[in-house]
């Protein structure tokens, strides 16, 4: 439509009567007396008469504009539509994003934004399509919180990428999508894959490599090897890093060659990857070096370990990724020792130390104060090699008195070790830890437990919260654990919370008013659990599975 403000193309040549009116109005009728006095009225009023007529005439004669080039239609989303109740729930969760959270105390109502990740995970697992009208809010939420992006974009589906191409605010979605939003070629089409690998932008190539690696790891490695020498050092590092996924013994020859790379960081990464393959030649070399430093002490009656750290860092060690110069404040021999032990396969130790199991080895005394250094290196090795037996041994018993204190193994390392155990064992260990040491150190450990928490773990957390309340402290001392509990506790535990909702009588030594705050915090916990149960139910697939076709297609 030709709006009143935009000049008619036809009038570009000669000033139209309307433009003449505007010019006169702009300058004033005193300065530009014109032929508007004909009606016998004052010039300004005659001008306004004319202008009014022209305005209404122009508005009444408006025509539609020519249509601009239409965008390509968005690709079809084959997933079934979200059930109505779940769609409304999503709208509420997304609406909470903009408001709230600024105020300090949270009261007894649930923190909806914190439930969004869970909702998205469930919706994705069930394979529902996002309602189109929710996409803008979903993209805005993903824009503000990078941790939400993968799940939010997966749920938002192809239409969101289509939408993101139209709005600069949502460019991140294109970057996050494989191939920068451009479609990757069919991975079976060797020629197209090779062409993209040769000619693509860096991000596209990384995406291609990642996609290939997910399905056919060997093809990805061969593709990378074909151009390896010609790549820039920082690109080589990134490409090498993408081999971390799907790493196997077949990658060893390639990685072994990369140990002679020009780039120091590339060499280090190759060495790190190789040491995660216990059967690799590098691991074997490391085992020999490490074994030379760690031995059974046969001079004493009780068995123990004696350490003789390496005297020098030779070129062979450096080639295998050992960093020669220690960080400030560390002795170089202990620094080298740590790197050797960390890269040596854990499976080599029982043979070296008298056929003992991991458990027994960890229990051996270590001479001359080397225990900390040695155990820390074993921890790193157990994490890198994902060795459950060694992780279990190094974690020790959760109820051991030193487990709660600043022992040889830090909480961060424990959390990593726990990741090597299966989820039930992990939950059991953390439950045991909480039962003995309370909640003050448990936050990091709870973070690695599978959601929803297994029953013993949930019970341990609730009991510990109950104990903390009875001890008279304020609930916000435990706000981190409380927040985790709201998100991770199994909704089936709601029953066990009923008894905690009452405001207890305050003991004399308790913090004033704490009882009321605790009741409120438990109320919020319970409301959130109920809400989560309801959310899961709303997302449950309809009886007889999801419909093969969207219902409207049948109508």
């Amino acid at each position, binding site marked *: 439509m030709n709006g009143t403000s935009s000049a008619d193309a036809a009038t570009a040549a000669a000033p139209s009567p309307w433009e003449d009116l505007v010019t006169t109005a702009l300058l004033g009728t005193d300065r530009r007396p014109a032929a508007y006095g004909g009606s016998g009225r004052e010039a300004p009023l005659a001008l306004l008469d004319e*202008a009014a007529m022209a305005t209404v005439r122009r508005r009444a004669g408006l025509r539609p504009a020519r249509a601009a080039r239409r965008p390509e239609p968005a690709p079809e989303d084959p997933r079934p539509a979200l059930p109505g109740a779940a769609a409304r729930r999503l709208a509420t969760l997304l609406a909470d994003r903009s408001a709230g959270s600024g105020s300090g105390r949270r009261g007894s109502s649930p923190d909806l934004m914190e439930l969004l990740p869970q909702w998205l995970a469930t919706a994705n697992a069930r394979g529902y399509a996002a309602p189109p009208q929710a996409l803008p809010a979903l993209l805005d939420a993903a824009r503000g919180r990078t941790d939400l992006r993968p799940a939010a974009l997966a749920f938002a589906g192809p239409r969101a990428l289509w939408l993101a191409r139209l709005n600069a605010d949502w460019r991140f979605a294109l970057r996050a999508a494989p191939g920068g939003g451009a479609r990757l070629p069919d991975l079976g089409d060797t020629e197209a894959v090779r062409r993209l690998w040769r000619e693509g932008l860096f991000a596209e190539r990384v995406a291609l490599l990642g996609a290939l690696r997910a399905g056919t790891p060997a093809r990805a490695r061969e593709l990378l090897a074909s151009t390896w020498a010609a790549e820039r050092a920082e690109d080589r590092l990134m490409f090498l890093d993408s081999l971390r996924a799907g790493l196997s013994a077949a990658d060893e020859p390639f990685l072994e060659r990369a140990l002679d790379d020009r780039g120091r960081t590339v060499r280090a990464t190759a060495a790190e990857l190789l040491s995660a393959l216990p059967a690799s030649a590098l691991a074997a070399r490391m085992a020999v070096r490490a074994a030379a430093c760690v031995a059974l002490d046969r001079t004493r009656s009780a068995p123990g370990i004696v350490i003789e750290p390496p005297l020098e860092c030779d070129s062979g060690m450096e080639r295998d990724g050992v960093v020669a110069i220690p960080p400030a404040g560390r002795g170089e021999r202990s620094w080298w020792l740590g790197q050797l032990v960390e890269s040596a396969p854990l499976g080599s130790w029982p043979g070296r130390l008298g056929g003992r199991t991991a458990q027994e080895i960890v229990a051996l005394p270590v001479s001359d104060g080397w225990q900390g250094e040695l155990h820390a290196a074993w921890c790193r090795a157990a994490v890198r090699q994902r060795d459950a037996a060694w992780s279990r041994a190094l974690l020790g018993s959760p109820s051991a008195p030193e487990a709660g204190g600043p022992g040889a193994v830090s909480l961060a390392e424990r959390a990593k070790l726990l990741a090597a155990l299966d989820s039930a064992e992990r939950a059991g260990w953390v439950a045991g830890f909480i039962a003995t040491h309370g909640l003050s150190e448990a936050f990091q450990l709870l973070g690695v437990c599978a959601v929803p928490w297994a029953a013993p773990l949930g019970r341990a957390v609730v009991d510990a919260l109950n104990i903390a309340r009875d001890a008279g402290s304020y609930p916000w001392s435990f706000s981190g654990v409380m927040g985790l509990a709201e998100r991770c506790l199994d909704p089936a535990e709601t029953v066990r919370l009923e008894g905690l909702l009452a405001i207890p009588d305050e003991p004399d030594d308790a913090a004033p008013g704490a009882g009321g705050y605790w009741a409120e915090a438990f109320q919020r916990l319970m409301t959130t659990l109920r809400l989560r149960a309801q959310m899961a139910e709303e997302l449950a697939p309809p009886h007889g599975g999801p419909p093969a076709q969207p219902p409207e297609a049948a109508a």
Partner: protein
Amino acid sequence: MTEQGVRWSAEQVLSLAPDAASRTAGGKLGTAGPWSEAGSGEGTVWGLCKGSGSRPYQTVADLADPAGPAYKCSCPSRKFPCKHALGLLLLWAGDDGSVPASAEPPEWAEQWLAGRRKRAETDQPRAEESSQAATADPEAARRRAERRAERVTAGATELEQRLADLLRGGLAAAGQAGYGLWDETAARMVDAQAPGLASRTRELGAIPASGAGWPARLLEECALLHLLDQGWLRRDRLPDALAATVRSRLGLPATADGAPVRDHWLVLAQYDSVDPKLTTRRIWLHGAASGGTRLLLSYGAAGRAPELTLPVGLALDAELSAYPGAGQPRSALGERFAPPAPATFRPPGTTTAEAVARYGEALRADPWLESVPVTLDRVVPVPDGDLWQLADADADCALPLTRAARSRPGLWRLVALSGGAPVTVFGECGHRGFTPLTAWPQHTDEAIPLC
């Protein structure tokens, strides 16, 4: 109608919220957690909500009242509805069994409901009495109207003088003068009891800062203001309908004395425009049988939500009476015969060419008209550089979106909903372009509000 049939959707409930904070707070309470003894029956919903105190709040909502939803809550909030009422209604809308349909409300709820029903019965005759009282002294009313007309005439004459001075000196000079000049003139028009002239005058002040092409826009608006002045000064020579239009444009009081039209009115759109003193709510209704599109206005004092709330997508069986004036869509809501219920139809649509033609046609009856309500069928939102337009799916024509519509989040909801495919869009079509207000995607009759 079954109990199931009248359950509202969560959007419809949330649109009752007086402000964004209440929406959020209500949304959080829309879970089974804090509620107990909740129930519903015959269009009323009740429940006990556990708050921070020891006694739970008693919350009741009455949606069955044809005069509009009513709420009662024992909480101290001054908002209507409060977050508890919203939460309760959300819970009810969620329909997950936590608000069972039970026949008997508890005593505390029953008391209030019974009181309301009784008052509603006694209100009816009283309303009639009071309207009689207003016209009891026709002589005094006539004198009052005459006095006001004199003041408006004085105001219009003064405004004509000021416009003449302005054009004599040139708009360029006025562009530098800023808002002060216009605000002062607007204040004079308020004194002259011509609010229509006052608001138009005040809006002139913003035009010089509105970017390229402002002189043309300022001249247009000055000319239309001049036209309105002239219309008032010569109203005795105008046809009755046009004279009524002039009166309504000036903001003079009028009563909706048109013949009541009973119909199934589909709520097309509801949106508020907020200024520091007044919140104005506009509700567009489409008559299923009459085919007409009518406008309801409702006002709220600063910071309070207007009383009338009709969620988009519901249809109500009610009577509307038109306000006087040619080409005026404004109506008053008369008797409601049933509570609003979800509608399963959409208004019939038209093409973009027909939409602008309708606007041109409507200008004959009301030259001051900014836009007309139109439903466009089968249009696609299309980016056009920095602008957006709605293009016909089957023709090479398009309507640009207004500047206001481009900056609203609703634009992106519309684009997402379409995904490049044709949709039905209701909105306002005028000389500035098209403002989309509600959309219906291809395959469902679910209305998606865009404003």
